Structures are given as C-alpha cells and as structure tokens.
C-alpha cells in the first residue's frame, strides 16, 4: 500500500508559499520521506499524476486552483483517489476543518505545523513505524 520504491514514502507538498514548502521538505526529508513540491492545485495534480505519491499535503488558499478543488479532482482520479491527504491551513475553525474533510482530506493541520506533528501524521498516513516511543 505504501512505498514500493527504494526511498522512503513519497510525499507531495502543495503550497504556494516557498517557505512553507521548504519547511515541510526539510522536516519530512529529515524523517526519511521523499518530497515532491507543487505551487498550486493544478501543478499539484500534474505532479500527483506523474509520481503517484503515498501522501499529499495540501494548502487551502492557492492561486489558479485551491486545495479544496485539487482534492476533489484527486479523489475522482482512479489512480489517486485513495491517496491519503492532509490539508493544512492557517484557519482553526471547525467549519474549515469540515470543509477540508468534505473535499477529501483525511486529516487537517493548522499552520504553522509543529515539525514532530507533521512527521507523526505523515508516518501514520503512510504506514511508517513511529520511531519515538510514547506519543506526546
């Protein structure tokens, strides 16, 4: 179900903020993931179709195509519809979380993410063993 290639599981980070992408890349690569990036929903979909990631982490507000739309399209693609997805946003309201789940997200993280939370969530959704004992 998850990584059938030699590197770690493949995570696609879709965010229009280069800083956020760099942060996610650093944190996730540090935990052994292979990270792909895209700057908006359209690019995210193209990238997802190309690499078939084990997990996508999607920002909400992006130009050209937002995260909701991207997830909806992703869920309609036969090859990608079961790829676990985390939506990440600065909003912490219940309604935002609900909207993310409706669009197809499996989990919702409020920005800025704590590195260890991001890693733990990514490990869980890609079936990687948690290295740290005792969940905080």
């Amino acid at each position, binding site marked *: *179900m*998850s*990584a059938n290639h030699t*590197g*770690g*599981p493949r995570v696609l980070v879709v*965010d*229009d*903020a*280069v*800083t*956020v992408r*760099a*942060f996610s*890349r*650093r*944190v996730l*690569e*540090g*935990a*052994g*993931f*292979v*990270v792909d990036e895209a700057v908006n929903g359209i690019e995210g979909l193209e990238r997802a179709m190309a690499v078939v990631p084990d997990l996508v982490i999607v920002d909400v*507000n*992006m*130009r050209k195509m937002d995260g909701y739309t991207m997830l909806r399209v992703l*869920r*309609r693609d036969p090859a990608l*519809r*079961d*790829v*676990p*997805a985390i939506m990440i946003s*600065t909003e*912490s*309201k*219940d309604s935002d979380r609900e909207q993310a*789940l*409706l669009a*197809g997200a*499996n*989990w919702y993280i*409020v*920005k*800025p993410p*704590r*590195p*260890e939370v991001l890693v*733990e*969530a990514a*490990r*869980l*959704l*890609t*079936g*990687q*063993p948690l*290295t740290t004992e005792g*969940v905080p």
Partner: protein
Amino acid sequence: MSELFDQFVVEAQELLETAGGALLALERDPADRASVDELFRAFHTLKGASGLFDMAPFTRLVHVGEDTLSLLRDGRRGMTPELADRLFRALDQCARWVAALEDTGALPADAAQASETLVRGLSGVSAEGAAGGGEAAGETDAFPWVAALAGEDREAVGVAGGVLTAIDYRPDPDCFFTGDDPLALFRRVPDLRWLRIEPAEPLPPLAQLDPYRCLLRFRALSGAGVEAVAPAFRSVPDQVRIGSVTLMPAAAPPAAPPSAKPITMAPPGSLAAAMLEEQARILDLPGSAAERQSRNAAVTRAVTAILTALGRSADRAVVAAACVDSRTLRRFLADGPPEKDPAEKPAAAEARPASPRRALRVEPERMDALMALVGELSVVKGQLEPLVRRVGDGELTRDMKAFSARLDSLVGDLRHAALRLRLLPLARVFDPLPRLVRDTARRLDKTVELVLDGAETEADKDILDVLGEPLLHLVRNAIDHGIEAPERRAASGKPPGGTLRVHAFQDKGGVVVEVSDDGAGIDPAAMRKAAVAKGLLAPDAAAALGDDEAVRLVFAPGFSTAGSVSDLSGRGVGMDAVRAAVERAGGRVEIASTPGSGTRVRLALPLTLSITRVVVVEAAGSFYGIPVAVVGGVQRVPRAEIRGVKRAESVVLRDRVVPLVRLRRLLGQPPDDGHGHGHGDGHRDGRSGGADCVVLAELGDGPVAVAVDDVGERADVVLRPMSGVLRGLRGYAGTAVLGDGRLILVLDLRELL
C-alpha cells in the same frame, strides 16, 4: 534553519512587491477582483510563512491585513484612499521588517509596538465598515500556537475559555555561556499549566550538535497573571514574549459521540487515535455516491496505514470491509485484531536528503573578476596576430591565421556572453515608480496616470544603479512641476488627469530612458529671465540663447524651475545632479519641451560601465578613445569652413555654430602641420588638401567639435580607472586595451575642455 529563513526573506520581498502592485491597481479600480484576490493571497501567504518563525508582530500585522482584505473581498468594506494609505503603511512596515530580518535576523525591538499601531489603524478602518468587526482576541494572535493546542493539551491546561498567560521563550543560542539555564526559569513560573520544550530548529545529528549551543524553544501557559509570571524572566527580556491569552474552547477534532466505544487500537489521546476517529467521521460525511465511494477508498487506505504504523496487522481487505460507515469502523477499531509481534516492525525509514533545485546566484566580485579575465584574454589574443605575421608565409602561417581568426570570434563571443551575465531588466528601476507616482500625486492633489514601457529592456547592474536615483527625481519633478493641477488642466482644455510616460529602449549600443509628461512645459522666456535674475547669465548672453538652449538651463547647477522650491522635488538631487550622475556614467541628458503641452527628458546611458564603446581617434601619433555615448557624429570638415582665429575656432555643423577645439592643443601637443605626423603610411585624402577630421561631441553644455588627426574604428573596451602616477591626470576616464593589444587613453572630454 538559516536556509529556510533566507528563503522566507526572499519570498516575503516578492510577496510584498506583488501586494504593493495589487494595492495600486485596486486603488485605481476598486472593482478589480483579481487584485483583491492577489492582495488577499499575499497577506495570507505572508501570515502562513511568517508563522514558521518567531516573529509574532509581523504575523499579527499581516493577519489583520488579511482580515481587512477579506472584508474588502466580501464587499463588506469599500476601498478608500485612507484604507489604501493604511495598507500601504502596513506593507512598508513589513518591508522594513524584512530588511531588518535580512540584516540582523530579528525584528527590531519596537516591532510589537509598531505592529500594534498599524493594527489599530487597520482594524479601526475595518471596524468602520463591518458591524462588530473588532474581535476581542486579546493577545491570542501574538501566540498562534495557543489556538492550535490539541485537545489533550487543552485538557491538561484545564481552563477552556479562561484567561492565561502565554510564554514564548527562545533562548539566545549562546545563553549557556552567560550562565543561563532556561529550563530552570520555569521552576519559578507560578501556576505553570503547560510547558512544551522543543527544538527551535531540527536538531542536527548528535555528532554535529554543539552541546554548548542552545537550540531549544520553550512555550508555556500559566494560570497566573502576566505581572506574576514576568519576574521569572527578568534576566532575559529580549528572548521572551509574555502576554495574556484567551484559550478558546477546542476547535480540534470533536470527540467521538459518548456512546461510541473507545478506540483501543491506538493509545488513548494519541494522534493516531484522533486520526482513526476522524476517519470514522469522514465515512459519515454527506456527498454524492461517487464522492463517498472515493472517500471510503481514501479512508480504507489511511486506516490501513495508521494501523501498520502502529505495528498492528492490517489486512487491507479486512479494513476495507470495516470502512463502510463510522459505526462499523469504530467497532472494528475497538475490538480489532491482535497486536503484531513488535519484532516484525519494519526498520525506520532512512533519511535521504534530496538536493533542492536553486537559481544560480553569482557574487558581483566574481563577475568583475570574470570581466577582467575576459579583458586580459582579449589583450593576449591581440598579441597573437603580430606573431603570426612574423612567422612569414607558408602553410603553417595559413593554419595559424585560421586559428587566430577562430580565437578572435570565440573571444568576442565570450566577452559578449560575460557582458550579458551582468544585464538585468530595467524593471528593477521601474518597480518603485507606480508607488512614487501614487504617493506624490496624492500629496499634491493631482491625478496622474503612469505609463511604463520597456521594462524588459536590459542594462548592466551598475547602470541600473546609476539610473535609479535620477529617474525617481525626474518622475517626482514631472508631477510636481510639469503636470498641472486638475483645475488648471481643465481650464486649458486638457483632461484633468495628467499622463506621465516612462519609456525605455535600447539604442546605439546603449540604453535610453525617456520621461515625458503632458504638463505645462517649460517656457524659454521665463528660463532666460530666471537665469539673469539668479546671476547665472548676463542679460545679453541670455537673450542670445536659442529656445532649446534656454530650456537646457534647467540642468545648470543652481537652477530651479519653480518659483519656490517645493518640498517634493526641491529635496535631494536637483536636475543638475541628474545630469551629473548620468554624465559621470558616460551618458547624456537631453530635454525637449513645448510650453503648454509637456516636457520630455531623455537619459542615454551606455549598456554597461565596465565595457565602454569608444571611437578610437589619433592625435600626434597616439591613440585615444572617446566614449560613443557622447559622440554625435564624425565628419571631415574642409579647413575653409572653420571660422575664427586659431585660439577660438568654430564651425557650422548641422545648422549649428559649434565651437571647435583641437585635441592636440588640449593634450599639450604641437599643432598638426599637415604632414610628418608619426604615421609611416598615413596617407589620407583631403588632409593636406585642407580638411580636418572632426568628432562632434554632445556634452552637457552643448555640442563641441573636436578636431583630431584621424578617426579609427569603434571598439568595446574594458575601461580601467587611471592608477599610479596617472591618477592625478585630469581629462581621462581611464585606460583601455584594444583588441589588437594597443593601449589607449579614454578621454573624459567634459573634464578636458
């Protein structure tokens, strides 16, 4: 984390620039949806990105900016010049902060205060438009992590909805050396409810970890008041932020319905448990059959993965059977299959850093070194040709000549390529103009439309640096003195709004920037009068000036066109400074004005400072270069047409009477007697027949004809400043080596005359 930080600085600069542009567009056309969206997104992205770092005042300001924009976007608030002012001020502040972050790595000490002031301004504005716009969030915004606390943490803190004191302490990395023990400070915090200690940046592997460098960050909540908490941190005021926050009731995943069985497959309170619960909830979300089907597929895969991560056996088919609705999944998760043998756990994934793609950035010094080497190479290549000639005739010579020619063209290409590396689009100097025009026009109550053209034109970075300041001045000047107030424009039958056009293009190996306005123009008669009044010219000299020359007086030192020096363009550089800056860079300034219909100022600059295109001229057997930028033309003039006596000659060129100077005399050489001047085979037509070779130089004060012995090729040369004993010599811009290895002196005619 510094790489990430650098990236933030660059991204923030870009976003602020985008936001500035969008705000300008939005102010012009409040219905411009694309600009509102652009602006909103810029603030939004800044908020998200800045939140990764410890810069709460920044985050807070852009957050409030985002809120304001969202009111605009939803039509709950209209755009006004006042609102634009405040948003501009917020953007300016952010830009200053980003500059400070780039320089010092931290926000200035007064950032929180500055942020507060701007936030109040913005919320004041947004509150006007939105009923009950102001949220009483206390300082919660300054501690975004408080709102993000997960459910179990909130439980531990214990006072949902209550007021707490938040502590965000990022010790100085060198604090161990000064005897600090950050952790120990928390022993003195009264009613400590919650403390999270985590690396402020990912910790390096142990072998690379400096045990004496503190990389941790402490965040805490206390039930005591700010005044009670603050004393514990008295010794580290610059490293800690303490503020009062309100802990809102959890927005985190809603707890499972109380009737549901607890999930036993994951440790209670763990992220895994919360995630599994969320998967169950997703199964019950509304949607079309297709939507639900694909959600179920995603949930099945997610649950399988989570269970695998927890070391439980997770047969996908079994999980899939459970992922039909939330009840079935919860039941499955509550009494799921037995735990797998921990020994079967797969090994932890190994880190495999991938190399990120990056744009190439080159240090200017290295560029200069490359240019110097290219220059040297040209010289060495030039010495090859005489050597080839000495070899004599034969096959070898032919081959060497071919080789030399090939080398020639390669060196030429190399020089061209190296030169291009330094070229940047003029957009860099155009970028500040829209904002400048907006602010200046608003201050003067004028309406001005700016038309920018040719921003893609390229020039050397040094030239852009030269161009920036004069351009700002010209634009300011045009709005201040050129474009009239709306009433006056209307009275003279013009549209009330003026048009300012800045147009850049490439020309004759250089770059030209024209600034033209459709304003009042410059009245030559008034200029003559003013020049006399200021004592710059005698009345008869002023009267003798042609209209064009009278208008050119604006470039004379100590001249100001307006009756009074306005606070806008009177400050800083004057028009004479514009001229001086441009001419120093080997360029020239022209002005054309029609009273009543406008003024056009034209700046012509070489493409680059390090490579200068010169006309090679000869005088008394030596070769000199005259920068092409000042050369208006080259021609032979029959001696009969040169008027005047030896000391003050003049010639009519293109219907103008132009003073003529002889380069030999300027250089202190004996006058040309018409023959025997150093050239073995120097026979040239017309010379003894009584003609002079004349270079028409367009200088700031007007054209001058420079008589030389001969005019040679035009050449691109690397100009080197005069050094050593030559440095004291006036009249030379520097030395340069021609392609064939000959050394020439490049003349600075302005200084020489």
